[in-house]
C-alpha cells in the first residue's frame, strides 16, 4: 500500500466493487461451485441481471462457467478461477486497509 491511503482507493477492482458482483464473488469464494439457480436465490437477482454479471466476471477471467447435467437436471455451474480468488483476496485486503481492520480476517 502507498503512503497516501486515499490513492489506494482508486486502485480498487471496480469489477468486484459493484454490489451484485461482490455478492456473487463472496458466495463463490466460500464454496467450491454453485449453480445458476442457487446464486439467483442467494443474491436475489433476476435471471437476466445475474446472467449479465456472470458474463462480465467470466470475461475478466474471474469465473469459470460450465454447462452440465445431473441426471436430467441441467446445471450451469459457476466457480472462481485462481485469478478470481487472487483478485477477490486483493480486493478484501484493500478494503480492510481502508476500513482500518487487521489483516487477519478471523471473526
Amino acid at each position, binding site marked *: 500500500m502507498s503512503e497516501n491511503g486515499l490513492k489506494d482507493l482508486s486502485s480498487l477492482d471496480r469489477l468486484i466493487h459493484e454490489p451484485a458482483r461482490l455478492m456473487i464473488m463472496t*458466495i463463490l469464494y*466460500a*464454496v467450491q461451485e454453485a*449453480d445458476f*439457480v442457487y446464486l439467483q436465490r442467494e443474491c436475489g437477482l433476476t435471471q437476466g441481471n445475474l446472467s449479465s454479471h456472470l458474463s462480465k466476471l467470466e470475461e475478466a477471467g474471474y469465473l469459470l462457467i460450465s454447462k452440465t447435467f445431473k441426471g436430467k437436471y441441467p*446445471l*450451469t455451474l459457476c466457480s472462481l478461477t485462481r485469478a478470481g480468488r487472487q483478485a477477490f483476496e486483493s480486493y478484501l485486503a484493500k478494503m480492510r486497509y481502508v476500513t482500518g481492520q487487521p489483516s*487477519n*480476517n478471523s*471473526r
Partner: protein
Amino acid sequence: MTDVSPTLQAEQRAQKHWVEDGLPSIIAGIGGLVLAFFILYRTNGHSPFKIIFLLGALTLYWAISQHQTEIVDWLKTRLSYPRTGYVRPPYMPEDKSLPLDFKMLSMEAANTALPEEIKLARARSIWLFLIALSFVLLPFVAIAYFHSSWIHSPWLYFALSLSFVAILWILALIEHRRPSWILVSGFFLVGLCMLVFQHQAIVGPDQFGYFLVGVSLVSIVNGAVSLFRFLRRNPRPASTTP
C-alpha cells in the same frame, strides 16, 4: 448485522443447504431401521429363507451406509436442485463412496485455496464437537468398564437418549442454528419409552435393536417434516436456467 462475516455466512448457508430438505435425515433413518430389523430378527429360527432374508437386510444396510451421499444426491437431483439450486460446500469432496458423516468431519477441504477464515472456523467446530462428544461418551465408557451389568439396564438407554439430545444441542450451537425440536423431543421420548415399557424378555442386543428402531423413526419423521416444509416453501419453477 451479525458478528459472522459474509464469507463465513455464505459457507454456513451452503452447508445448511445440504440438510434443509430433510433427505439426509430420512435416508439415515431408513439405514438405522434396516440395521434394527437385522438385530431384532437375527435369532428367531434358522430356516434358509430367514438366513437369505437377514443377509439381504445386512447387504441393504451396507449399501445404504456406504452410498448414503450418492442416494441423497440422486434424490436431491429430482426434488431439491430444480427448486433451490445446487451448491458444493468446501468440505464436500466429489468422491461420494464414503458415508457423509465421516466426510463432514474431514479437515481436508477438496478446494485447497479456501479462505483462512473458513479453515479456522472449520478446525474450531471440529475440535469443539470432538471435545463435547468425548465428555458425553466418557461416562458410558466408564459405566461399561466398571459396571458391565449396567449395560442391560434400561436406564442406560434413557441416559443414551439424553446424551443424543446434548450432542444435538452442542452441534446446533457450534453451527449457529436452532436444534430440531422433533429430534430433541423424539430422542427424549424414545429414552423414556425404553425406561417405562421395559420387558423382562427383551435383553442385550434386542434392547439396542428397539432403541435403534425408535431413534431411526424419529430421524425419518424429522426428515419427512423438513421435506414437507421445504416442498411447500419452494414450489418447482417453470424454467430454471437461462
